[in-house]
């Protein structure tokens, strides 16, 4: 025990404990609670039934009241533990409730009902995961198509982004040609123009091209990311030109040099861009919100927002679909977190 404690409290560098160490760990623990807590709470809530969700104060785990089928009644009845006048306790099903009095029935003797005061009964609850929160919206509402649209947008857009940006980066890093500097300055310039500033005219252009309410309208405008071109160009600059000269000697065309030589050598940078692109596209909201106005073309983000904005918020579905929306990104992060954090720390973009 003592040795375990000594092991746990041992510090790198072998110095003793300082009060600020305790404060640091306290802060980090608070951080874990603050950062993960809300997400865990969402996950737990998403498994609660509609009745469980309106409970106040809420419970952490998804409990739901047990129900029994009683002979002679069509619907399952809620089960309560009833304190009888003689002080004994007995599980009974509630037939109906009138004011503060409930009419209860013993499931074993379905023909006898007794009246029980409201405060003499407590619901019998058990842990139950309401999977129907997940199944129903995917089946009955359009969530399946939202999900599909999001997947299409994310994969197609990422593919186009990678191809188009790597081509441009190759052209701008491995050739000397007239206009190269102006193109570079031009791309730096576009870095400074976020969609928030030009969303009105981009909408006009998209309308002219017939892209309103089409997934292409979501995919194309953001496909030529200046950050992507820069990231890839910086990387390609480190590839020695001799390799390209050697390939040319072997009668490779410029296109072959690009896709058989440069792209495979730039894979680390391309992978970083791919992950960024997946993140950007999956989470994209403002532009799809503008360009997609018909329900069947909504992406998951827009669909989720529209669904939660409807008059009667059906929280049990909203929470479950929120979990579905955050799941892919969470999985990507769980497997690639080291890769992502180092990628961001070294490029300074998100």
């Amino acid at each position, binding site marked *: 025990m003592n040795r375990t404690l000594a092991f746990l409290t041992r510090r790198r560098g072998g110095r003793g404990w300082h009060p600020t*160490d305790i404060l*640091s760990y306290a*802060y980090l623990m608070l*951080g*874990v609670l603050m*950062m*993960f807590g809300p*997400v865990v709470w969402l996950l737990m809530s998403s498994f609660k039934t509609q009745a469980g969700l309106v409970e*106040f*104060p*809420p419970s952490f785990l998804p409990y739901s009241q047990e129900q029994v089928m009683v002979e002679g009644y069509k619907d399952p009845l809620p089960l309560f533990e009833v304190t009888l006048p003689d002080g004994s306790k007995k599980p009974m099903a509630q037939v109906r409730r009138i004011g503060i009095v409930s009419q209860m029935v013993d499931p074993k003797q379905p023909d006898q009902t007794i009246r029980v005061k409201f405060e003499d009964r407590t619901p019998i609850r058990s842990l139950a995961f309401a999977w129907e929160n997940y199944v129903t919206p995917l089946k009955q509402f359009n969530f399946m198509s939202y999900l599909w649209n999001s997947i299409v947008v994310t*994969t197609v857009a990422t593919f186009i982004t990678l191809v188009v940006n790597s*081509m*441009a980066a190759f*052209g701008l890093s491995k050739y000397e*040609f007239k206009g*190269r500097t102006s193109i570079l300055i031009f*791309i730096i310039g*576009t870095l*400074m*123009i*976020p969609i*928030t500033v030009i*969303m*009105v005219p*981009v909408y*006009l*252009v998209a309308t002219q091209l017939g892209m309103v309410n089409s997934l292409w309208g979501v995919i*194309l*405008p953001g*496909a*030529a990311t200046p950050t992507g071109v820069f990231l890839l160009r910086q990387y390609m600059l480190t590839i020695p030109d001799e390799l390209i000269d050697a390939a040319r000697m072997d009668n490779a*065309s*410029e*296109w*072959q040099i*690009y*896709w058989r030589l440069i792209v495979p050598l730039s*894979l680390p940078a391309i*992978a970083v861009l*791919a*992950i960024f692109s997946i993140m950007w596209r999956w*989470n994209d*909201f*403002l532009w799809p919100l503008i360009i997609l106005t018909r329900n069947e073309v909504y992406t998951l*983000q827009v669909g989720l*927002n529209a669904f*939660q904005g409807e008059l009667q918020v059906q*929280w049990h579905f909203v*929470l479950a679909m929120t979990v579905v*929306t955050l799941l892919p*990104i969470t999985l990507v992060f769980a497997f*690639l*977190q080291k*890769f*992502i954090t180092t990628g*961001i*720390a070294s490029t*300074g973009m*998100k």
Partner: protein
Amino acid sequence: MKRSAGDGELRGNRAEGLLRLPWEVAMRALEYPMRGVQRLIGQGRMPYVFVLPNLLIFGTFVVVPLFINFYYSVTGGTALFPEDRPFVGADQYGYLLDCENHLSPFTCREDRFWRGVYNTIFFVTFQVVAMVGLSLLTAVILNRRIVARGFFRSVFFYPVLLSPVVVALIWKWILQRDGVLNAVITAFGGDRVLFLAEPQWAMFWIIFVSTWAHMGFYTLILLAGLQSIPADLYEAAEMDGTSRWRTFRRITMPLLWPTMLVVLVLALIKSVQTFDEVFVLTGGGPGTATQLIVHYIYETAFATQVHNFGLAAAASILLGTVLFILTMIQMRLGSRGERR
């Protein structure tokens, strides 16, 4: 080159597998026509072919819109197509900027714009200070000799990856009338608060939630900045018996300052453009208490009955000017940081 980045790299390659097949097919199919193109225009002009698709997309969706935006801002009416819009000169700007007293939005002709401006200024001030402050604190703590540093770093970074809609819904659920926060408050004997229905609380929570969602990003950059400070400086300070606080003030802060400035301006640029989380969390409400400037532009152009594209374009050009100035400052700072 491929094997140098560690195990994250190997897993990354597996994810690429999904993209590899369509890629191979497309590239192989293009090989023959591209050889033809090269023969036709010559090897020296091939870079233009490589740059072309990117420039086409840039041109169509960034450069052309930029010019149309100016045109929109000097024309009136509600028509979308430029040829149907009458020229009104600087009227839209005049309308936006016309106030009896610029410090009180209610005296302005377009009071929603000014309320958006003041909300944004308030929001940006507190959000950036809170975010950079907390990021710095977190980065400094993570830079200590901490067990499981990678884990804690990921914990703070995780919300950055979540979509704004998800972030807003997570918090909306916590903050609602019967939510867990009100449960805690009532458990301690307090009264329920309608957090998103009271102007001050709503403003507080949009600042809180956007800080929660983005601080991990800045923490990461600041942590990278801290780790690039040479360790021997600290060793020397320790040998001299310098106090921790003094070490922080005299070594850490001056050397971290360039990174701090970049983070500050970057946070500022992002903060001015905040829209998504707030739109889903409060919808700009109650009333217009949390309506920020981008939200104003969005509403004016797309969400109101009458689509006032001209006014939205004028407002977005004013916003763009502010962002442009901020970006210039950032680039200045960035290049100065590199020179050191």
